[in-house]
């Protein structure tokens, strides 16, 4: 049977130290809610790094490629023959 414990803190450093101790003891920290980002908490409770930035870059690359291709074949006479 598993127990769920809720802990409330008023200091983010104490929270961080507390989370480290709890994880060291083998307990799983499900989530940490805070009014501002607690730097350092991600490694302690196992929040995985996001690939959002990589995705954003790829979306931008795709968009730019399509735009450049579109502009290239829009101005090229060859494109008109294909279109109409």
């Amino acid at each position: 049977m598993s127990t769920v414990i809720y802990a409330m803190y008023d200091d983010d450093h104490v929270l961080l130290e507390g989370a480290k101790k709890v994880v060291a003891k083998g307990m799983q920290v499900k989530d940490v809610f805070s009014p501002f980002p607690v730097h350092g908490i991600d490694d302690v409770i196992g929040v995985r790094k996001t690939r959002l930035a990589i995705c954003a870059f790829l979306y931008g690359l795709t968009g730019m490629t399509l735009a450049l291709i579109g502009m290239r074949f829009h101005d090229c006479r060859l494109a008109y023959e294909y279109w109409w």
Partner: protein
Amino acid sequence: MHHVEADIREPLILGNKTYHQITEDVCAPVEGKAGKMWYMVFSLAALLALWGVGCIFYTVGVGIGVWGLNKTVDWAWDITNFVWWVGIGHAGTLISAVLLLFRQRWRMAINRSAEAMTIFAVIMAALFPLLHMGRIWMAYWVLPLPNQFGSLWVNFNSPLLWDVFAISTYFSVSLVFWYIGLIPDFATIRDRAVKPAAKKAYSIMAFGWTGSAKHWNRFEEVSLVLAGLATPLVFSVHSIVSMDFATSVIPGWHTTIFPPYFVAGAVFSGFAMVCTLMLVMRKVLHLEDYILVKHIEYMNIIIMLTGSMVGVAYLSELFISWYSGVEYEGYAFMNRATGWYWWSYAAMMTCNVVSPQLMWVKKWRRNLTFTFILSIVVNIGMWFERFVIIVTSIHRDYVPSSWNLFHPTFVDMGLFLGTIGIFFVLYLLYARVFPVLALNEVKTILRTTGESQLKQLRAGEHITVAEGSKH
């Protein structure tokens, strides 16, 4: 890991603050009632705004003939105002995006309000190219949509079209960046809200934000990505706006210095407007512990830097007008300095070249009254700069038989004042509904830059960030 803060670092948050106190200070204007001052300024702004809206309807209904434009001077106050407003908008993005990438923690007290200023300024800017079309109901023709006019496409070679894309991109990215930063703060207000209407409204605006660690992780990543997107926009948007002039053949316009000159000028006038707004806001909303003299000083340094760049651009323009040997270019500048509009050129030179140099004096750039007056002077100067560039160059260009003067009508002036009114209406409403300080960001720096916390750190004591803390 014991944090070390250099001794020369001044605190960024004054007083004996706790996290809770920051929340209280910033949420007070949102949760409390507006003072008499707010109502007075709002009424004034609303009157101006109403007059502006009337002028808009008059312009759209009767036509561009109600402005003072003529065949020679076909761009005057409309485009001057457009460039002025877009320029002002650039400071907000620079503060939010560029200073984030440079990890400047002092931006946190001002970035929310500066971004709000950007968004409202860009809305005001967009009004002018739309209105100056005349037939605003055909505004959608600027979009490259397939059609049945033989498929009539927009002129992709024209910077006026590049403006459409640049400014709409700038507006949407700024809006998204601003809004995402607001979500955790809306959640804070939602959690504190007592009245059911307010709670409902802020719940919707907060998009269910819980403050979970994973969400904060994604939030910070998104902020960095958006900052990375917005930074090139600061430089590209105003470069494109400058190309409205630079890609033409008009003497006084056709110069390659315009893109960097305009970008520097935009940052210059933008920061001046931020100073104007922040100096009033910190007093009225009692945020003197967060928006410090230090912030004002840093902004003044940026004003001085970009003002100097603008000054250098003016001097290079003058030099090249002679050195190029092109008589039309030479005349354009002789006319600017000594011709019919010499007074606007004098205003521009005094306000933009002389005034930022005064910021070298430390005592003056740390003086709030001086800064306030100077920031208004700078904005007036930058308006005149755009006026000088636009009107004095085209009122006397290549063919003397076309030379003409320009006189603004009451609609020209009414529209400009009206946009100032609409801007302040939006800004004053924003100050009452939105938390004007980036709550969540400022809390992250309390531990390392709060006044009492720094004292504790340097004395080797434990740092307290919460009330009743025993540790």
